[in-house]
């Protein structure tokens, strides 16, 4: 809507899908997962006990999005299809390994989150397709998580943000880490080198600092009026370190 008000977007035809009430639902998925209709309002997800129970990361991400008046109307599908590089939900969906159901007159297909986000505000949705459902795999016990961002004001799009999931074993050694940054690239940015540095380790402060530096080095963000590329690189590393500290702490506490 803002783009239309500013006359930056001039669609010839608009179809209002808000009344497709069947597409608004939150239900339990297989293996402790979630199945969420694309038209589910962000506020409903924020308030949902089912979501809180089944996916603490998704629950924690919701209040970071804009302000409650926006979340009253904004939908999860809308945010994902809009694919703003600074948005939280795309990054969260990528590290959760979410799958998106796309429907068209030709049929239905399922796209993994990591394949869904193609470029700035560009997704894999074809012109005749509608995103109808988001499937989130079950939460594994003992998973540690964190989401953090820096924005100029509360509710603004993030200058830099990180979502992280870690799985540790009985020795508190990291088996797997999934880290995605937002606000630092055209789409959510994974940092495989940093993730690799965690594998098999129970990272100490020194390792975390090295990982932070590795993330900073890996990132190649743009500058804008709010933050320079250099800022985003640096702070991307800092936030990753802090997110990992929190995630590992949660994982360790989960084990007890």
């Amino acid at each position, binding site marked *: *809507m*803002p783009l*239309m*008000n*500013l006359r930056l977007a001039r669609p010839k035809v*608009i179809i*209002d899908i*808000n*009344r497709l*009430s069947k597409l*608004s639902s939150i239900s339990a998925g297989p293996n402790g997962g979630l199945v969420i209709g694309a038209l589910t309002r962000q*506020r409903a997800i924020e308030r949902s006990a089912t979501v809180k129970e089944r996916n603490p990361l998704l629950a924690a991400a919701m209040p970071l999005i*804009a*302000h*409650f*008046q*926006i979340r*009253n*109307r904004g939908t999860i599908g809308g945010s994902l299809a809009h694919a703003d590089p600074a948005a939280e939900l795309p990054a969260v969906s990528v590290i959760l390994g979410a799958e998106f159901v796309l429907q068209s007159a030709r049929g239905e297909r399922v796209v993994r989150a990591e394949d869904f986000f193609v470029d700035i505000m560009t997704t894999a949705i074809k012109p005749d397709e509608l995103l109808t459902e988001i499937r989130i795999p079950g939460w594994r016990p003992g998973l540690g998580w964190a989401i953090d961002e820096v924005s100029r*004001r*509360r*509710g603004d799009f993030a200058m830099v943000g990180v979502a992280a999931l870690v799985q540790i074993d009985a020795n508190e050694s990291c088996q797997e880490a999934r880290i995605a940054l937002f606000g630092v690239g055209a789409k959510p940015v994974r940092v495989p080198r940093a993730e690799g540095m965690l594998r098999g380790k129970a990272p100490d402060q020194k390792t975390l600092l090295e990982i932070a530096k590795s993330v900073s080095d890996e990132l190649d963000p743009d500058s804008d009026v709010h933050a320079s590329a250099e800022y985003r690189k640096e702070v991307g590393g800092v936030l990753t370190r802090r997110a990992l500290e929190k995630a590992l702490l949660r994982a360790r506490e989960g084990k007890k």
Partner: protein
Amino acid sequence: MTVNGKSYERLVEARMMLADFLRGELDLTGTHLGCEHGVCGACTILLNGEAVRSCLLLAVQADGAELLTVEGLAQGNELHPLQKAFHERHALQCGFCTPGFLMTAFAFLKETPNPTEAQVREAISGNLCRCTGYLPIVQAILQAASEPGEISSKSVSTPPARRL
């Protein structure tokens, strides 16, 4: 649609913004436009019981809905506790942002009738005010929240939530 309890039926261009419709077609000029891109909150109204930005909705999207605007807060000459509190706490200067704050506060207090100061600050963080510095607005909302009786029942009966 129903606005402040009254029914209206109009034929409008598809591109007409809801805020422009309320202000232009229905002469309800209490809802203001400060940015037209959903940031300042001056255009906040209630749609089916929930606070929304009327600059981010097309008028046609409100077809069949129940709306509440600032003009619907007072009951005749009886001001809503929020309105009284804003006056008593000097929570307005130029008054342009005030309707948006009142509607946001109204929606917020329905859900969180006994908020802390921090919760109030958070709840109004999506509304901009250039004059007051927010302090008296926070105080006014806390004062209204502490009024005896159910704050939401003192005003126009809010409709049951209906998903659009």
